[in-house]
């Protein structure tokens, strides 16, 4: 029983992260009909931004409340900026071209980021006043992410059968908060309405006076910031960062988005949670060696039975 509970906690924790990353995929797909393959790598860049901020703050400051807030803010703002540049210079020029070209571009960006971050290149810039600005790519080997939330046991069930830590609860609350903010943005604000209109038909939306370019750029920034937040939660949970983390998490989150029905916001959340739990229980109660095969097998199964995903629908294509 205790084991089941522990597996549930593990699965939900993994699933929340998948869900947050999947939301980014789904939003971009919604407005652009583009699978943003670089999404996971944007997340990875965000984690490194948070990492650099945390190291810069030092051991004491990084775990204070404002320190954590600053780390999240720096990563999310930095990623929003990165998302803006990617959209502006890599995707926007291709918007009227066949969709394949944008997809290839996305894969190209993903490669450039995940492999570029593995290089050990760097330079130092002397600043006035004896300071030195050193910028370096992180290199291939993984690093330990600092404990920005000092681990404390909050709840112990039985003879340490199940332990719940403070950061698990805090992470879950942050994730929930981010999802609620997103829900509000998409369904309760002018920007959200504009976004949904663009998603419905971007040409008609433009005729209605919606600045589609700006809406798409904002959507990109929003999804990238969300990815950075998700990435930080992921790094807090699994305590290590590496340039390839985006590839693995991005892939799984993408599967989650498709399972839930890509383009559908609640679908991404459900898909993420379902995938997290399925993986957890396959490892816990069946064979751990088959975990990745089960994840993708599940995806193919869902596509076979419900081609649009659990919550999506296959839209009739307009000519």
């Amino acid at each position: 029983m205790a084991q089941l509970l522990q597996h549930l906690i593990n699965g939900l924790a993994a699933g929340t992260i998948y869900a947050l990353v999947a939301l980014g995929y789904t939003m971009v797909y919604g407005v652009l009909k583009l699978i943003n393959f670089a999404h996971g790598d944007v997340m990875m860049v965000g984690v490194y931004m948070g990492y650099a901020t945390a190291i810069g703050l030092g051991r004491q400051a990084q775990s204070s409340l404002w320190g954590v807030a600053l780390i999240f803010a720096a990563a999310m703002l930095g990623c929003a900026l990165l998302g803006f540049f990617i959209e502006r210079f890599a995707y926007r020029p291709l918007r009227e071209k066949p969709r394949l070209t944008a997809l290839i571009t996305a894969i190209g960006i993903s490669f450039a980021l995940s492999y570029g971050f593995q290089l050990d290149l760097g330079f130092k810039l002397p600043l006035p006043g004896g300071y030195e600005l050193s910028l370096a790519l992180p290199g291939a080997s993984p690093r330990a992410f600092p404990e920005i939330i000092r681990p404390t046991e909050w709840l112990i069930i039985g003879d340490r059968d199940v332990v719940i830590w403070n950061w698990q609860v805090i992470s879950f609350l942050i994730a929930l908060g981010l999802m609620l903010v997103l829900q509000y943005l998409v369904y309760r604000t002018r920007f959200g309405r504009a976004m949904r209109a663009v998603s419905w038909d971007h040409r008609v939306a433009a005729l209605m006076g919606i600045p589609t370019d700006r809406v798409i750029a904002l959507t990109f920034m929003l999804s990238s910031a969300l990815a950075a937040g998700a990435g930080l939660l992921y790094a807090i949970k699994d305590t290590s960062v590496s340039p390839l983390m985006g590839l693995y998490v991005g892939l799984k989150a993408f599967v989650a988005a498709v399972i839930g029905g890509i383009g559908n916001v609640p679908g991404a959340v459900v898909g993420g949670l379902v995938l997290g739990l399925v993986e957890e229980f396959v490892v816990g109660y069946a064979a751990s060696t088959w975990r990745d095969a089960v994840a993708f097998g599940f995806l193919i199964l869902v596509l076979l039975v419900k081609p649009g995903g659990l919550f999506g629908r296959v839209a009739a294509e307009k000519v």
Partner: protein
Amino acid sequence: MRRLVPMLLAALAALAAGCEKKTQPAPSGESGAPTATAGQSAGSAAPEGSDTILLGEVGALTGGQATFGISTRNGVELALKEANAAGGVKGKKVAVRVYDDQSKPEEAALAVTRLITQDKVVLILGEVASSSSLAMAEKAQAANVPMITPSSTNPAVTEKGENIFRVCFIDPFQGFVMAKFAHDNLKMNKVAVLQDNKSAYSIGLADVFTRKFTEMGGKITGTESYSQGDTDYRAQLTAIKKTQPDGIYVPGYYSEVGVIARQARELGLKVPLMGGDGWDSEKLYELGSSAIEGSYFSNHYSPDNPDPRVQKFIADYKAAYGGVPDALAALGYDAARVAVEALKRAPDTSSASLREAIAQTKDFPGVAGTVSLDEKRNAVKSAVVLKVADGKATYVTTISP
């Protein structure tokens, strides 16, 4: 077209009827007679009058195992630098040409073929990963060029032929070391295994450990696996926790083991972890932090060893590359020094005399233990068991074959 199908069927039937066992065993590899090609490659191997002897090395400088390849290369370079400073070999300098194989066996085969046929190297050093070494060994054996692998522990590598040597111990021994240590020294009866299913090295160690530990009367409570690159091992660890083992054998690489240790502690698993030489890296203590304390791993050498040769190596390495050398650097260093010794002893640089000279290596004082090659061209060495304490590995005991 319609006539073609029955004709094809008839041809197939004729072939099937004609099948039989081959009368003699098929010649292994393309060149059943290595001596014929030996003349070609070895004769042109060292252009007379040139003032350098060129060695070749293949290593993973990029890709999944890049850190290991880079350590090995550093060790090799350091050894050659010292050899050249001491006057080289027979008045010539020794140089090494390094090619990257991106941790892929097909690239390793290409690189080794290039080294042999284009660069005409006299001897090949390399690979860490056993699958890449196997690919290289096949090519080196066919071309009859001697090859020394610094750190491939899979037994199959040296079985490829008489040209393939190694300066480290093999998986069956390392698995045995930890099984013996867990059973005799740590008095464990029940151990769970957590292996990296993407790595042949990890599976090999886990298999041997399981067999030996069971033979000694211990019990394996469960075997779980993960994939290199994962960061969440809670599901496996939760399943392991249920079986209440006395210890967990995690024969993986440091990049994953550090995180595994943290998550094990987080889930309330307080038992020690045990592992192999893949743990050996300073990164382990950064990634594992306090969680990895009190764990044990088997290794080729201990940086604590007071032997002046070892301490000099560590000091030189630190000066050249920064950081304490890991076991792979030490093995790369040893492999290159064994090669240089053999070059010195051999009357010329032809394959046959080099092979002879390497095979005669006996009681060679390497930094990662004394190297004596047996008739199967494997090094017979003892292993050390290290304990993680205060953010570094401290020597516990030595276990001999």
